[in-house]
Each structure stands twice: as C-alpha cells, then as structure tokens.
C-alpha cells in the first residue's frame, strides 16, 4: 500500500518532468527537468531492489553526462530556443505523429502480452539480487562477450575523440605559420 502511494507520486513527478523537459523554451530548464527525471528513475530502481543500478544511474547520467550537457549549453550560450517557425515549422506535426505512433505501439505491446515475461534465472538468490558482487559476477561470466564488446566500442570512441582534437590542433598550427609568413 505504502509502496503504491510512493510509486504514484514518483510516477507523477517522472511524467511531469518529462513533459516539462519537452515544453520548456529554455535549454537550461530542459536539462534540469531531465536531471530530475533521471533521479526519479533511480528511485524506481531502488524500489525494485536494485541499489547498484540506481547509484550508477545517478552518477553516470545525472552526475556526469548531464553536467557536461549543462557545461556545453552555458559555454555556447544557447539557452534560448528560437521560436518554432519558418523552415522548422514542419517539424512539429511530424514529431507529434511519430510520438503518437510510438505510444500506440507501446500500449499495444503491453496490452497484447497476457502476462509479463518471466524474469530470467540468473542463478542468484532473491536476497543477493542486484548487489554489486552479484552484478560483477554475472557481468564477467555470462555476459563477458557483450561486456568486452561495449568496452571496445567505447575505447574506439575515445580514441576517435582524441584524434579529432589532434588534427584540429595541427590545422591551427599550420594556419598560424601561414599567417606569420605573410
């Protein structure tokens, strides 16, 4: 009973913050609504008995990614969105249509599946489910291949980012030397 009440309040905040993010004209407000949304989802994870994922959700999404978003928004001073109009006026109806389609598909999926899919047996007792040690064990045994694959992908992205800034710097140096010659 208590859990249901807490869930309903949180769900209201969650949906409200998502709508707030979509409708706010100011990019900083939108980012803040998204942070609130992430935090509420972390609380959902806590209620489902997965504290590890809850903490990771806050640290990674709210604490790192969104802070960087905020940094970029403030640095380039792009706080205010331009009023929709002119060239972008076709975007709004298309977005509405696609959003509605997605919602229909989701509702259909939930409505047609008679019972939720049974949770996969990870060989973990209910008490220890979601503890850091258990997650580590499952991640490094059952899911070692996808885990390594993702690590490799991230590494590639990281190397790419480093290379991109490197060439930029070289270009700038060449430009500077050209200017000095003139």
């Amino acid at each position, binding site marked *: 009973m208590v859990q249901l009440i807490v869930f309903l309040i949180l769900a209201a905040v969650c949906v409200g913050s998502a709508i707030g993010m979509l409708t706010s004209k100011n990019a*900083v407000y939108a980012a*803040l609504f998204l*942070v609130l949304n992430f*935090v509420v989802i972390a609380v959902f994870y806590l209620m489902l008995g997965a*504290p*590890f994922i809850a*903490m*990771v959700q*806050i*640290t990674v999404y*709210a*604490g*790192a990614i969104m*802070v*960087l978003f*905020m*940094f970029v928004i*403030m*640095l380039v001073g792009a706080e205010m969105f331009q009023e929709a109009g002119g060239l972008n006026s076709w975007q709004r109806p298309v977005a509405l249509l696609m959003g509605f389609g997605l919602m229909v598909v989701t509702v259909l999926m939930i409505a047609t599946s008679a019972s939720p899919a049974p949770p996969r047996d990870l060989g973990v007792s209910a008490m220890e489910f979601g*503890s*850091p*040690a258990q997650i580590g064990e499952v991640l490094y045994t059952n899911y070692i291949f996808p885990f390594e694959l993702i690590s490799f992908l991230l590494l590639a992205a990281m190397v790419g980012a480093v290379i991109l800034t490197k060439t930029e710097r070289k270009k700038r140096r060449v430009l500077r030397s050209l200017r000095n010659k003139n």
Partner: protein
Amino acid sequence: MSEVALIITEAAIKSGILLFVLLTAFAYTTFAERKIVAWLQVRHGPNRVGPLGLLQPAADGLKAIFKEEFMPAGADKKIFLMAPIITVIPALIIMAVMPIGPDVLIGSRLIRLAITDINVGLLYMLSVASIAVYGIVLAGWASNSKYSMMGGLRATAQMISYEIALGISMVGPVVLASSLSLKDIVVAQQNSVWYVVLQPIGCIIFFIAMLAEVNRAPFDMPEAEQELTAGYHTEYSGMGFSMFFMAEYIKMIAVSAMWISLFFGGYLGPFVQEIPVLGIVYFSLKVFLVLALMIWIRATMPRMRYDQLMAFGWKVLLPLSLVQVLITAAMVVFWAPV
C-alpha cells in the same frame, strides 16, 4: 510498536542528530579555520564575541539572517533562489552512510552508529558528490554576471575531472576489503592494517582529488578572488551566501570522513572493541585533524593556474590511479589475499 515503526523512528532520530551535529560542526569549522589561519599568520583572529571568541559563529549567522537579499538585474529568479538549496541538500545527505562507531547495544536493541549501512555505500557517496556540482553551476549561470559564470564553468570542469581520479583511487580499498560498504571497509582494516600502509599512492591521490572536489586551496579556482571577485557566489548575499558557505564546509567534513574511513581505519583505535563509544571520539578526532590539515594547506599553498590544474588532473592523477588499481588487483590475485 511494530518493527517497521521502530526502524523508521530510529532512522528519524539518527537523522535529526546527524543534521544537528553537522550544522554545529559547520559553524565551528568556520571558526576553527579563522583561528588556525590567524595563528599561522601570527594574528589573533576573532576573539571579541563570548569567551575566546567562541560565540563568533552565532554572531555571523545572525548577521547573515538580517542582511538584505540582493537579486542582480537580469538574473533568472527561480534558479537564482534554488541554487543555494540545491547545493546544501547533497552536502547534508552525503553523510547518511558513514559509520561513526561500532554497533552499540542499547537495551535489547543493536543500534548502528550510522543512519544506514547499504551495500553500495561508497557509490552512494560518490553519486551524491557528483550531483553537488549542479548548485554551483546554476548559481553561476543564474546570476547573469561574467564572474559568476566563469566560476560556475570552472567548477564544472574541475569537479568532473577530479571526480574520476577520486572514484578510481577508491577502488584500492574496495578491492582489498571486497565490499562497497564503508562499514565493511572499516572492519576489514581492523583485521588487517590501516589501508594507508597498503595503499600509500591511492591515499595521496584521494586526498588531492578530494581537495579539488570541495574547491579548497590550492584548487579554489571557482572562487579565485583576484581574478573572479568571488566566483560563482559573487552575486549572493545574506542567507544565500551562507548556504554556499555551509555546503562547502559540510562537504569538507564529509570528504574528510570518507578519507579516514577508507585509509585511516575510520572509527578504529585502541580499546574500541571494549568501549564502543570511544569510536565516536576517535572518529571526531581524526576528522578534526584532517580538517586542520586542509586549513593548514589553505594558509600556506599558492593557488594553481587553471591549465596546470586540468593537466595535473588528467595527465598525472588519472594514469597514476589506474596504475594503482592495476597493482592492487594483481597483488590481491597473485600474491596474498590481504
């Protein structure tokens, strides 16, 4: 009373005590800072209000309450008012998982000397610390002032960079104790030695990164007064300013508590097993010593330049902490489980 009600009452009482202690500790840390810095600079420091100046924090608080709250023109009102609150809340809740003593038996009930002990305690502290930056960034942005903005941006870049080294330097103790719960890490040090002996490099990295995380000298770039007036809180006065101050000092206490729990045995000390209350004494004493060390550093070290700060974080601390993790893991696997 039912068991659930008992648990909730216990948590509420402990939270109340913790908040009271933290706020008092905040007031007297500011006093200690002024006194210690004065002593290091051969001055007297505050000594007018009450015996030895001991009532100075109360006078300061009273002054802050009666000061005018100033709102700069063109400021974003809502966020300007919210920013100090967003800064204070993480600072107040971060200590919830910190064990300040061994379990004590009161009546027939075993009372934990921490609000709670969760199996992801360390991650909890890290995640709360990582959202603490929002208040500072928002204060900088909402003030509509160049100085505040620069302070806010610097704070973001600095805290994100040093958080990585901070997090990785925690891995050593976590691997040695094979737990993310602070309580388990402290207990593991009881059976072995203090982890500062096994993890000297990690210990130093954590200390440097934690100074940067709470924006203390020599990493107080976000509020460098010579170049940024006062950084992100330039435009704040009265209670808003006091709340930033409060958050900064409580975060100092929190990271000090983390450092001693990870590397200096937390509440451990002689006879702690026989008389559990001694644990609180040792814990407070250690935290005070670390705070004194931070104040001492502030009084003696010059501030780093911004590019040096970033280069140091990414090119020195991060690789060093990764090497430390590698060595620790290899030792635990191949040599002896410590």
